[in-house]
């Protein structure tokens, strides 16, 4: 892990080395104390959304996806829009926990655990959509290659099958990465708790971890390896998601810019969502001193950078459509910007490219209310980006006789709402039962946490 003694600015509450106990206390306060009123209000809202979603979910399972707005022409609607949206959100978590770790960005420590949890929950939401959109979700076992009575294997030439592997690997690896980080924290919780049941649970979860240096030595290497493999993984996942589109021959989808464009968009939307949630959580759990304004400002800078990259991709798509001289491609892009879905296109451009430019100003990067509005717009904009890519490309393709419009139904909206409910409910439960900041990691970067004398060295 990365250690640094210049962490003072980010940790004003615990400025002295001997107050590690205070770090424990602050981080574990939500876990140790009874839920506050703020928390109950939050969970009742997210729980309601989840209940609405569950209702629509059940109806879809019972009566089939005819309840949705998808039609012959626009065969992919909200289901895939939301899938890509949620998978993208997950990417910020891995970026923070793995890529920033490799780049030795110490400020990531305060938000890494939280962002990883978001990754896991977002991928759960995403898989829910693909699982459901197959129509008969109880047969989804056939997505995996297993020896079956029909003697059929899955088709490895299909990007949709690559997706199955990519998304599942992504979920498993993120989950493992996250749990490995939790083991030392469980040990700390085990040694602090006074309650019998909690003691049993934490003892089992910590696997009997004793903070031995002979274990830490291997642990650190394992952490580095996991960060090292998560980095290409996170880049590959959205690349493969983009293949779902790019490998087809549909104008507006069939383009080589998709992989980098999707990855940049994923990080952009992910950071938007991390910030949205973080702004709430640090308020609800009084963690303003651990997740500081400095962290948030750094994340806003990343938003600015990735938002601009996405803007470049929008421009480049337009340019390539014109430069290709291919009339179907040209039509698709004109239709996107000025056709019946013009409003979706311009919402996307405004929210993703326009408004984030305000982050050039330091005042705005550090102002919670303005930034909150901006990150909400980013979330909206990135949702619309997927909507624009999927619906506007499909609704008018080569055959004018099959052109159609897409009208989502109340069930589409219900399931979308439900996915937000699921996501926020899981987040709220997570911050209550698990340490939402990695305790052992934050201790390691606290001032004076590392030896000052000349014996220093070793394999870091």
């Amino acid at each position, binding site marked *: 892990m990365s250690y640094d003694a210049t962490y003072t600015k980010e940790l004003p509450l615990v400025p002295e*080395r*001997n107050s*590690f*106990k205070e770090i424990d206390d602050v981080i574990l306060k939500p876990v140790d104390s009874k839920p506050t009123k703020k928390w109950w209000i939050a969970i009742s809202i997210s729980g309601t959304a989840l209940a609405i979603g569950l209702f629509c979910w059940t109806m879809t*399972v019972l009566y089939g996806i005819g309840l949705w707005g998808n039609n012959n022409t626009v065969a992919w609607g909200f289901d895939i829009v939301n899938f890509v949206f949620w998978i993208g959100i997950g990417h910020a978590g891995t970026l923070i926990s793995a890529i920033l770790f490799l780049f030795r960005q110490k400020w990531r420590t305060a938000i890494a655990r939280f962002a990883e949890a978001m990754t896991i929950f977002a991928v759960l939401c995403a898989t829910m959509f693909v699982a459901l959109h197959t129509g008969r979700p*109880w047969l989804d076992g056939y997505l995996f*290659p297993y020896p079956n009575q029909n*003697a*059929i*294997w899955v*088709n*490895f*030439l299909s*990007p949709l099958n*690559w997706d199955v*592997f*990519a998304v*599942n*690997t992504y979920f498993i*690896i993120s989950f*493992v*990465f996250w749990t*490995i980080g939790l083991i*030392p924290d469980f040990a*700390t919780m085990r*040694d*602090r708790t*006074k309650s*019998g049941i909690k003691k*049993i649970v934490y*003892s089992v979860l910590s*696997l*009997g971890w*004793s*903070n*031995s*240096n*002979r*274990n*830490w*030595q*291997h642990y*650190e*290497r*394992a952490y580095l*390896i*996991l960060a090292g*493999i998560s980095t290409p993984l996170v880049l*590959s996942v959205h690349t493969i998601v983009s*293949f779902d589109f790019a490998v087809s021959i549909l104008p507006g989808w069939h383009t080589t810019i998709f992989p980098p464009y999707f990855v940049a968009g994923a990080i952009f939307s992910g950071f938007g969502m991390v910030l949205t949630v973080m702004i709430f959580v640090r308020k609800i759990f009084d963690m303003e001193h651990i997740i500081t304004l400095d962290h948030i400002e750094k994340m806003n800078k990343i938003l600015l950078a990735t938002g601009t990259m996405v803007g470049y991709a929008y421009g480049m798509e337009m340019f390539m459509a014109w430069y290709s001289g291919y009339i179907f491609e040209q039509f698709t892009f004109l239709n996107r910007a000025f056709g019946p879905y013009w409003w979706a296109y311009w919402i996307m451009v405004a929210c993703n490219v326009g408004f984030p430019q305000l982050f050039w100003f330091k005042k705005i990067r550090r102002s919670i209310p303005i930034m909150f509005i901006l990150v909400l717009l980013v979330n909206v904009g990135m949702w619309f980006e997927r909507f624009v890519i999927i619906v506007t490309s499909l609704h008018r393709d080569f055959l004018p006789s099959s052109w159609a419009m897409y009208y989502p139904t109340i069930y589409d909206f219900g399931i979308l709402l439900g996915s937000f409910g699921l996501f926020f409910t899981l987040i709220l439960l997570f911050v209550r039962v698990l340490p939402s900041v990695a305790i*052992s*990691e934050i*201790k390691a970067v606290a001032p004076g946490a590392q*030896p*000052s*004398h000349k*014996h220093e*060295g*070793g*394999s870091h």
Partner: protein
Amino acid sequence: MIKKIVNIFKKVNEDQNPWKDEKSDKVYAVAALFNTPDEIIHAAEKVSNSGYNDFDVNTPYPVHGMDDAMKLKPTRLGWFSFALGLTGTLTALGMIFYMNGIDYNNIIGGKPFFNFPSSVPVTFALTILFTGLTTVGVLIALFSKLPWLNNPLLDSEYSKATSQDKFGIYIKSTDSKFNQSEIETMFSSLGSSAVSLIYDSKVNEKKIKTPIFETGFIKILIGVGVGTAVITYFTLNWVIFQMPFDWMVIQPKVLPQEKSKIFADGFGMREPVPGTVARGFMPYEYKGMPDSLVKLLANPLPVNEKTLLTGQKRYDTYCSPCHGNYGKGDSRLRGQFPNPPTLMSEKVLNWTDGNIYHIITNGQNVMASYAKQISRDDRWAIVHYIRALQRSQNAKDSDLN
């Protein structure tokens, strides 16, 4: 088993580690706590330089330079990850090669059944999956020897302090140089804030070297695994045939012969709308008329091998059971049915083609119409074939030329 669980809860109420056996009198280790990372590094250097081997350091987080101070060899974990990651690569390639390249070929746009580029994404994902899972598995089971819930250290004041803000070091009694009082004085002279003794739990430590490979644990693991698999299998097999998982057996449609409430008469099957004409249907103008009126019809088909062969096929299928293979009326049906007449009679020999066609199409007395079974062209082909039969059965010398 139940006693064990009860014991676990009892101990928890006494604020003890529930997995630790009764404490024995045997000293497990001498442990010392320090307040700063500098002190602990110093202590670790001192201990390792004094020739102790069975010692360990406990810190709330990894301390820089500790591996060197303890003279630990660099970890070999990475090699395991690498090797098992490669296994993932090969597994994926082998799997795709066998599944799509050999066992189940998909024809997609004429592409090769197995090809490398399209195998890359899955291979990549599985490589990472294998690397990640094995790294973690090897870390826990092999390198950290976890889970080790009855570790004698756990739940001691020493251990509780080191998981929060103190830095601890302990030397085990199994060390060849172990001498309790000597070590205690050494720790005090190093400036330790607290020196304490840690007692062994009754379980011999040797037996739990790698607890994950213990037979008891493995048995439980296998038991749980098999149990879950069996239960899942039977539950799933039951669940997937409950509503709403009807496997599309229940469909809101009317099958032949079924009732339907939609129609006033309650029949699901409907008569065609009056005047409906089936595809390809041509009305027959002499329908139901005596054959004397049918003289004008001419055979539209040319006489050639193809029509004759079609005619033969159709004749053998539809006509020979009654009229016999050569049209002599000598089929085995004779005597069981109004005897089918021979087609070699003067009457038929003198008929026009149209007359024979009329009989096939319209039927005659007991012989039913064959218009529904045999298409128009095939009926004319049969007529040609009957003509050929008639000639062959009454052949003249001149026919041989």
